């Protein structure tokens, strides 16, 4: 199964795939950031693979000097009952990632959540604003340099 997916991907996107990993029965493919739109569209529309359901979209902060963030897409194929994970690496200097909301409308809030928690901008997103924290909050909570207890003064309490 892994070979079949990789074969079909390699027909078009041989240069975009950076690495492939299989761990505990799950296939993870790291793709170049600019190619994520075409790769996802190919995986979704391909008649054999049909990864038509985006189950999860999240970010990870690895806190390393190069390629600090990663955005992870967990896809599921309803036809074949199979999962795949696509990852892209985002460097801190260029936090713009093409959005996949045109392909899956369900990515809307998931991308907003990633923006809220990490500060990664999704280009082409219809309505990119914070979802969990209040609008005027200035920081991105899930980054590793944000303390667990928060920064004093960043959130206001009503008067007693």
């Amino acid at each position, binding site marked *: 199964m892994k070979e079949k997916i990789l074969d079909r991907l390699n027909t078009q996107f041989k240069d975009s795939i950076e690495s492939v990993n299989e761990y505990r029965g799950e296939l*993870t493919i790291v793709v170049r950031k600019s190619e994520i739109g075409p790769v996802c569209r190919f995986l979704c529309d391909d008649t054999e693979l049909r990864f*038509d359901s985006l189950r999860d979209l999240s970010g990870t902060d690895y806190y390393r000097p190069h390629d600090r963030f990663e955005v992870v897409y967990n896809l599921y194929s*309803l036809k074949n009952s199979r999962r795949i994970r696509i990852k892209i690496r985002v460097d801190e200097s260029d936090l713009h990632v093409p959005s996949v909301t045109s392909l899956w409308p369900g990515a809307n809030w998931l991308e907003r959540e990633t923006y809220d928690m990490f500060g990664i901008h999704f280009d082409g997103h219809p309505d990119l604003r914070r979802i969990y924290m209040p609008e005027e909050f200035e920081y991105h909570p899930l980054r590793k340099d944000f303390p667990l207890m928060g920064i004093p003064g960043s959130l206001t309490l009503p008067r007693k």
Partner: protein
Amino acid sequence: MKMDRAPTKTTMEPGEHGEHGERGDRADRGKLKILQALEDQDTSVTFDDPLEHEMVLNMGPQHPATHGVLRLLVRLDGETIVAAVPDLGYLHRGYEKIAENMTYHEYIPHTDRLDYLSPLANNVAYVLAVEKLAGLEVPLRAQYLRVICAELARLASHLVWLGTMAMDVGAVTVLLWGFREREKIQDIWDILTGVRFTTTFTRIGGMANDLSDEASAMIRNFLDQFPENLAQAETLLVRNRIFIDRCEGVGYISREDAIGWGLTGPLLRAAGVAHDLRRDEPYLVYHDLEFDVPVYNDSDVLARFYVRVQEMKESVRIIRQALEKIPPGPVNAADPKRVLPRKERTYGKMEELIHDFMIVNFGINPPIGEVYNAIEGSKGELGFYIVSHGEGFPWRLKIRSPSFVNLQALPPMLKGGMISDVVAVIGSVDPVMGEADK
């Protein structure tokens, strides 16, 4: 309704005389102000076409439809909904950041509070993900026990759903009946786990306690009398003209849209997609158990109602089979470096004491890697994505919560409906804000 109000002075100085001869004396200034305001309003009000202007209604975070703190901003054209925007974040407790600071065992009580209507199911989901990451094999007895717990949790969650949805639509009796049944399930949890509600029953490598005979007798008694009570509540609703009129054709979403929005669970099954993780990607021992997956094609509130009621009946079937098939044996895996030992042995034996100390303080240290594991929760697919760097606590833990993704599809479902449909549709989506807001 637009009211043109000409700018008039509404306060008067003492000694002043107004246009209509009133005096601005202090003694009767209050009465004159009121009179003047009334006269201003009366003489200068115009009625435009009342349907020309739209109104924005805020169904605020605190509202009696007990679905938690969901804020819904609805743009209305008369009584028809033009657009709706849900606003989340009122219960954002920072679960994912907390997870990065705790060992895997310490995080299990936090998972209870995610979908707080079915706490045992969340425990099972989290522990399955961690065991997949760590490569632990759990004995068969524990797997059957986990199936029983997860299905009981699904029953409890659907009972609250039934009660609150019926109450929102108008039938308050069903709420009290639902809570009566749920109290019986909570008694079972009390005997089985020790806690009524937020149970924290599963452990990495097995369960905290074994299934005692008393508990299994209690479950059997409950299962014997539950189907008739459910049928009683069902007959109250299913033949009710008011209920059917309020629910039929309301909140429709097409099959392609449902897949595109990433809906899972009863919402997807009511839209005609036969997808259930228990059957398509069997985890635990579901491949050994016989059950049907209800699928309806209408994709409205009534279809979702039927799907969930049918699911409750299937859950009863699954628990009965699991109770018969459960094998004797140990309930925890035999891996002393990663599975917590029994407490009484910790106080007596040296090895167990050391292992307990190491596991509690330093964690289980799974290998470096990442894993995503999902189960079929009562709301949909509940998944955990865990990234581990080889330490005792996760580097990143992402909770894929079904309510969060299901709530995204609320605006297209509400468009074109009436205000009173909002409650019915929210009831059918059954969001739990503890999991949607993480």
